[in-house]
Each structure stands twice: as structure tokens, then as C-alpha cells.
């Protein structure tokens, strides 16, 4: 569904290329997690997939990025936004500013697409309910807490139901309950065929919800694979990617000879319980 071939990008006047020789494939209907260090170019990559780079950003762009068979740099931004919805990293900047209430904010994009009114109301109400925003619908989109604003930014893209959804650290300001709501929604969308790319630092969540993980380092994708294989990779820390406390504990237990090296490295609580539970039984 998403195909990036030898993509490179340098911001205007920047001393070096932020991305270079970047290849990425995301299969239709799957959830791909992107990890990488601060400043490694994750947001830049998200903007390329969503068609904002090169169209709205000066600089040097090379390579081919296509979504659903169409090469993004050959079409217009309007065509791109019909296919790819981008939830930007800073939710504060995503609020359109054109509307007085959260309800109107969520309806904004649908209005622009001339969606029929009753259908629009129905879609806004449904998405608001699934993201816990119903009590906030009549509030001003600016009079919200950071986390609430982030949920509004996500909802305003989800309501558009684009075939491809790119989310740039969408749970960075969310509490555990809000985070769960977001991943539940993404899971359901993916079952319905939406292709999802999510940039996220919380390894435990990616491990639980993604079909595949790609690691961005040195301007390109240096590793792709299942969450279990990527998160057990010894090179992870050299790429600036963190491991969960459970993975760190399992590594230490291995070093101290308390866990067999044949045992896969756990990432989350359920696989952690399996590894530490069985190996912890007193013999």
C-alpha cells in the first residue's frame, strides 16, 4: 500500500540530508510501527508519506514515494490528503482554529468534503464516543488539557476515515486509559482495512499492537521485522531505541545465568509473565 524507494530529503539550507536511501513497504491493512532516536527523521518520514514533503517544504527531494499505486510527488497535496490522514506530532498545532467547539472542529474536514449533514453528525458522535470525547463536544478546542487536545487531533483525522492513517507520536501526552482507547480504535480500523503507520516511543504498545516494526537510523530504515524480532535485536540501543524494563530485566537475568539464552526476550507483561513465571519456579 505504501512504497518508498530510495527516498532522500534535505531541508532547505540544511548541511546534510535528513533522510537518504530510504526504502519502506507497508502492506495494506496492516499496522506498521516506526521507531528511532530523537531527531532521526521520523516526522520528516511521516510528512513524506502524507505528501506534505516535497509539496509544502523547500529542500532537496529524491526517490519515489507511492501510496495505493499513485506517486505522491506527481499529484497535488489535495489528492494526497484524500488518501492519507496525518495526525501531526504537536496536537496543539493541529487544531484548525476555524471552529468554536470540539464538535465543529471534528466536523470541519467532513464539511469541506460536503458530507451530508445527518451522516456527518453520526460520524462525529461515533468517533467522539470511541475516543472518550463525548463530554467535551461543546467545549472550545483551545480550552482543553494537553491530552484532551491530542485526542481531539486524533479524532479529527479518524473521522475522515482515510484509507491510510499516519500518526506521529499520537499518545505522547495521553494517560493509560486514553492510550488504550487510541490503540483500540487503530486495531478496529486496521481490521476494517485501513493501513496504519504509527510513530511511537512506547515499545510495549508497539509490541502489542503492530504487525511490523521499522527502525529509522542514520537517515534510512536499518531494520524491519515482527515486533518480537526487532525488539530483541542487540543493535537496538546503538540505533538510539529504548527497551522496556522487562526486556532490560530479561537481558540482565540472561547475563547472570538465570534465564537460558534460548528463551525469547520478553517485551510486555504477558510474555514477561510467561518467561519469568516458568523459569522462576523453584526446582
Amino acid at each position, binding site marked *: 500500500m505504501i512504497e518508498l524507494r530510495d527516498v532522500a530529503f534535505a*531541508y532547505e539550507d*540544511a548541511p546534510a540530508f535528513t533522510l537518504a536511501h530510504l526504502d519502506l513497504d507497508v502492506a495494506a491493512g496492516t499496522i506498521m510501527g516506526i521507531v*528511532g*532516536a*530523537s*531527531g532521526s527523521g521520523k*516526522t520528516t518520514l511521516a510528512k513524506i508519506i502524507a505528501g506534505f514533503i516535497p509539496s509544502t517544504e523547500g529542500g532537496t527531494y529524491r526517490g519515489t514515494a507511492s501510496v495505493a499505486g499513485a506517486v505522491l510527488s506527481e499529484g497535488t497535496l489535495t489528492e494526497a490528503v484524500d488518501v492519507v490522514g496525518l495526525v501531526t*506530532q*504537536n496536537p*496543539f*498545532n493541529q487544531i484548525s482554529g476555524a471552529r468554536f467547539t470540539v464538535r465543529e472542529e471534528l466536523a470541519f474536514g467532513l464539511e469541506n468534503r460536503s458530507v451530508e449533514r445527518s451522516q456527518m453528525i453520526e460520524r462525529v458522535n461515533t468517533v467522539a464516543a470511541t475516543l472518550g470525547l463525548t463530554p467535551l463536544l461543546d*467545549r*472550545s478546542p483551545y*480550552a*482543553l*488539557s*494537553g*491530552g*484532551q487536545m491530542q*485526542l481531539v487531533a486524533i479524532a479529527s483525522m479518524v473521522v475522515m476515515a482515510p484509507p491510510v492513517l499516519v500518526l506521529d*507520536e499520537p499518545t*505522547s*501526552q*495521553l*494517560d*493509560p*486509559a*486514553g492510550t488504550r482507547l487510541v490503540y483500540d480504535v487503530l486495531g478496529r480500523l486496521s481490521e476494517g482495512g485501513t493501513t496504519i503507520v504509527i510513530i511511537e*516511543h512506547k515499545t*510495549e504498545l508497539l509490541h502489542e499492537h503492530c504487525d511490523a516494526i521499522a527502525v529509522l537510523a542514520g537517515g534510512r530504515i536499518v531494520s524491519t521485522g515482527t515486533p518480537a524480532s526487532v525488539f530483541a535485536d542487540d543493535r537496538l*540501543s546503538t540505533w*538510539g*531505541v*529504548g*527497551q*522496556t*524494563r*522487562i526486556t*532490560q*530485566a530479561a537481558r*540482565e*537475568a540472561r547475563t*547472570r545465568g*538465570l534465564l537460558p539464552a534460548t528463551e525469547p526476550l520478553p517485551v510486555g*507483561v*504477558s510474555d*514477561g*509473565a510467561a518467561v*519469568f*513465571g516458568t*523459569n*522462576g519456579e*523453584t*526446582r
Partner: protein
Amino acid sequence: MNDLTIRIEALRHTYESGVEAVAGVDLTIAPGERVAIVGQNGAGKTTLVRHLNGMVRPTEGTVHIGDWSTSDKSIAELSHRVGYVFQNPDEQIFARTVESDVAFGPKNLGFEPEQITESVTSALEAVGLAHEAQVHPHHLSLSERKRVAIAAVLAMRTPIVVLDEPTTGQDEGGVRLIASIIDDLTARGITVVAITHDMDFCVENFERVVVMARGTVRADGSTEQVFADQPALEAAAVEPPQLARLARVLGWSETAVDPSSFVDAFERRRRG
């Protein structure tokens, strides 16, 4: 040394919209203490701490920074005592270069030119951005901009530093950097108040945790006490750190929150 006690008494704040964001908070923070504030989205954490530098004023009750009541002081006056790093760095950053943004605070506080240079340089070094001093902040990534916002407050050398979600968007190295900055502030006697949703960061760096729910303080105590208080955590929808969750699933009585002590506990159990 810092001798400023933060004293919040019977504090309430209702926004113009009618939302009561802080609904009766009493909280005292001693000079040099470091405190984490945790709790659900919309619990009132940001509204509460914005009272400390006067960005938000009490609707009822009082906030004292040492002998000053924030109700009688301007934001400019309060900035001599309290530095606040915004949750959203883009609300805080406005200069054309990283360096001039970080120099803004010290200049306004009336630092001597050489003091300005010195404090800006050391603040940028602390956040790992010395090499980006001449860059336009908009040409940095978001986590880098957050570190600029932190540097801007460090450079002010205030006796109280308030950090609103400092680790948001930081990678592993960035989180470690922020932890070491907090250690350094503590070593210099500076009071640190930090809001966070990252429970690993919270238990590893803070001795005292305040749990907020619906505009009130639901729990306040040592980190161990608070994370052992299941009812309070549930009421505030706060999830314990990852290894504590694993220990619970395994049915362990002890909660080891860092990997090494978790493995120690595992080893003791294996020996029987």
C-alpha cells in the same frame, strides 16, 4: 541556598468557561524537595502548577512561594523564583535562534552580560544542544524544541523549577539526560516539581509523588507508599510501572521497579 517553601492552601481554580480544574488543593513542598505530579488527562495538573509562576491565578485559596503570595505578584516578579517549562514547547519558544531564546529569561532577570553568556552556554550543554545554538528553533524536531524550552528555564537559575511533562517525545537518551538534569538541580538545592505520565521515569527519579484526580489530590506520599495504594491508583486511573505490573501478575509480594532489583528478586525466588 534555596529557602522557599511552596505552600498551596484551599486552592480552587475555575476557568471562564465554568470548568473547575482545581477543586480544593492543599499542598506544601519544602525547599530542595523533588516531587512528581501524576494523574489522568484533565485532572488539573497543568492548571495547578501554572499557579506557581502566576500564569493562572487562584479563584479561591492562596499560593505562597516563600513569603510571597502569588496573588500580589506579577509573572515577571515571580519569574525570579519560579521557572516553568511549558507542556507545549511551541507556546514557550519565540526567538529566531536557539541561543537568543535561551538568553531571553536571564536578560529579563537583569543578569550581567557575562552571566548571560555563561548561563546560556551551560544550559544548552546540559540539554545537549550546544551545537544548535545558532539554529532557528523551528528547524529542530519537537523533542529538540522541548529541550530548548528546558534550557530556557535552566538558564534563569531560579530556586524552583517546574517541568510540565519533560520527557514527552524524548528517546531513551533524552530521558536519561533529563533525569541527570534533575539530579543536578537537586544537588544545587533547587526545588523540582515535575508532571509526568511516564511511571518508569517517575519511580526512578522521584521520592515523593502527588496523585491528582478531578482537580483534587487523591494521594501524596513517598513513591513506595503511593504505588502500593491500589485504591488511589485505580481512582486516579494511574498505572503502576511496568515491572510492578509484571510482579503483580506473577503474584510476587515485593515490587521491584528497576530491572536489577527485579532480577535480584527473581534470583531469590528461584533459589526457593
